[in-house]
């Protein structure tokens, strides 16, 4: 990933947003400013800024922190990134059928793996304790609707 690729991503976002502005239904209400003006101005502004950023990035004038001294990624960066995201995906996939604690534990283990903790029993125990503690605090004590803690409570 480079600043220029970020500019390309922003340009794609602008194109998608412009298409969405085009499909906003016109209001039948009589008013000076309809529902499309402000979105159009914002998308237009973002497009202009993206263009300036893109040109600046092309000339190598935009920063990438990872190129700074002591900031570059150590080997295995993508694996670490993916293991953290996998923890999130596991939570989303399992929170419905299994309640909060088991998916919360798996999510925590994915995050811990991203910070170089091996995927083993100790990690499962610590993350299980974290997920259980938060479920008890939020759902049991404070009454936030996290759903059941464990599958057999569903």
């Amino acid at each position: 990933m480079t600043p220029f690729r970020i500019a390309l991503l922003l340009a794609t976002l602008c194109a998608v947003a412009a298409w969405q502005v085009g499909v906003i239904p016109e209001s039948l209400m009589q008013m000076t400013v309809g529902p499309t003006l402000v979105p159009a101005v914002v998308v237009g502004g973002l497009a202009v800024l993206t263009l300036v950023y893109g040109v600046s990035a092309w000339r190598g004038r935009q920063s990438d922190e990872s190129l700074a001294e002591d900031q570059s990624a150590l080997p295995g960066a993508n694996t670490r990134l993916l293991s953290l995201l996998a923890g999130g995906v596991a939570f989303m996939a399992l929170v419905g059928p299994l309640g909060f604690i088991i998916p919360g534990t798996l999510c925590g283990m994915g995050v811990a793996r991203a910070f170089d903790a091996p995927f083993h029993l100790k990690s499962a125990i610590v993350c299980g304790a974290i997920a259980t503690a938060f479920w008890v605090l939020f759902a049991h004590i404070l009454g936030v609707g996290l759903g059941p803690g464990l599958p057999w409570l569903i």
Partner: protein
Amino acid sequence: MSSFDALLAGFGNALQPVTLMWGFVGCFVGTLVGVLPGIGPALTIALLLPLTYHVPATSMFVMFAGIYYGAAYGGSTTSILIKTPGEAASMMTALEGNKMARRGRAGQALATAAIGSFVAGTIGTLALTFFAPLVVDAALAFGPAEYFSLMILSVVAVSAVLGNSMLRGLIALMLGALLGLVGIDLQTGQPRFTFGQAALLDGIEVTVAAVGIFAVGEALYLGWQGRESKAGEVMKLSGSLWMSKSDWARSWKAWLRGAFYGFPIGAMPAGGAELPTLLSYYTEKKLSKHPEEFGHGAIEGVAGPEAANNAAAAGVLMPLLTLGIPTSATAAIMLSAFEGYGIQTGPQLFASQGSLVWTLIASLYIGNVILLVLNLPLVGLWVKLLKIPPPWLYAGIIVISTAGVYGAGNSIFNVGLLFAFGLIGYAMRRFDFPAAPLIVGLILAPMAEQSMRQALTISMGNWTTFLTRPLSGSLLAIAALLLIAPPLWRKIRNR
């Protein structure tokens, strides 16, 4: 009722055991999140927003204020002991404080930071008490046109003046504004940027965006880097917490000067806490009888910036409480909490929710005392927190973030958005896009659109109303100046 009477009534409420308990919890949690790297007050308050359905507004805002002040106090511990400033405003504390710690004076560095925070926080709260009603009186003359212009000034100031690059700040702002416009248009009922998804009709929750960017984004960035598990050493808590006579003599003027820089600059739309801390540091360096110690552990270099940082925290509350304008990410989340309770912010807040506002202000005084008591005697506990291994620390942060977002509406879609915002946060962190403009834009864009439409309805569609009304025109002129002046100045200087 005069401000003083209202404040006394506020103390009456704030000293009720239950309110006091929430204030104490807020201060404790605030210090905790201030000490822990990777988790700040904006994220913590965002995570606690689901509780707004269960806790009375006064208690909740007293707790939020405790978290906000507490984080400013706690940040100094991390800066001094592991030289990791949680935010730009703590940079100077990290520079001088860590050098003091390395010279065996960590205790004195922590003490001058905590006492300075107390002194400046109290001065800042005093200024808030007596100036806020004056600002409210002035703001009552504001119409929708002035509000629109004020919001434009605020977002321009937050994006263009703060951060390292005006261009990247403005892109973050536009991105936030775009996200803020997602959902049903409240005036016409038309869906915008929803891609036909029912889940997007209500718009994007501020909590999801803020937690995603601050918590998941930070964890993704640090995980990707892979350097956090090899984090720097935590300095030993060396030296007495008691300051010597000479330490007091070198600190007290720095505290006062820091407070007088911090509050007014913090209260400005473009102020923030970075500028006053830098100004305070360089003033102390210039005025010190020991300038040679700066860069090697000068106590004034910790006392002044820490005081400025805390006074600025009080200053940021001024535009939030009097005008309903957030000038930092934390203030933006607090504004969102007001909306969660259905409380209309702006100058009418003092009239319609006087009891809440004055209890909140009174709780800031009490919070300062609680924080002084919490910070120094419990410093050993805070040091232990710094030794939590990063895998378990970040696992805890992400699990609590996921719980906070999932608990707000049991929406798996929102958890997905949380991680999507995490990826945005990762990219923003890596390519140096500031996060605050995105959050402020997300909240202010729909409000600014609403004010603009109201102003145009009143002026019967006359667009010049924004320029011809003196106050509105002046605010827009300042905004334009903020946009044009810095690059122009740079160009002139380069010649």
